[in-house]
């Protein structure tokens, strides 16, 4: 069973509102990923970190999305101004290295009304 903890489990926001979700990676895992899974089961990579440093991120992440993994605090993903198309399951995962086995949390299901 995964030891990646994501909160909250569900998040409901109005359009234009901020949406913030958190992730505690598995202990000892320095690499953290965020993926978005839409209702059609399409997964989209958003961003990944090694410790506190961003390794890679997509263009979408650079504009309305912000993420961080501060030391000694949960990682977070925040959408500055939510849009209906952001409604999805946001999955956090961690691993020992970027190309190693990935362990996912339960996800945060975001609904933007």
């Amino acid at each position: 069973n995964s030891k990646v903890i994501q909160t909250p489990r569900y998040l409901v926001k109005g359009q234009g509102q901020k949406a913030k979700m958190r992730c505690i990676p598995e202990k000892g895992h320095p690499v953290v990923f965020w993926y978005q899974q839409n209702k059609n089961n399409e997964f989209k990579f958003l961003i990944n970190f090694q410790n506190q440093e961003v390794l890679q991120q997509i263009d979408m992440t650079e504009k309305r999305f912000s993420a961080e993994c501060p030391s000694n605090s949960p990682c977070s993903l925040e959408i500055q101004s939510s849009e209906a198309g952001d409604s999805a399951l946001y999955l956090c995962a961690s691993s020992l290295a970027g190309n190693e086995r990935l362990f996912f949390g339960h996800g945060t299901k975001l609904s933007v009304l």
Partner: protein
Amino acid sequence: GDKVKQSPSALSLQEGTNSALRCNFSIAATTVQWFLQNPRGSLMNLFYLVPGTKENGRLKSAFDSKESYSTLHIRDAQLEDSGTYFCAAEARSNYNVLYFGSGTKLTVEP
């Protein structure tokens, strides 16, 4: 086009029977992972593969990087095997990022 094509999209099995899922890659895949997602959304990692084969209980998975495909075999299917299975590949062109298949929804019936 799809970088990872997964088939079938849905599958119904009787308890105790066997089946196989497949993913074909149009990318130069270096590693493959298989996951099972339950109805609540939790993704469980089943296998991490470099080219070759691994077995875990009733599950067996293979990854052939030269022929660009991976398979997941389920033997003696049980009710608890129900869920959506995803394969995901890491590409030589973009290390650390996984490209997911579209999933196989498996229903095991008594």
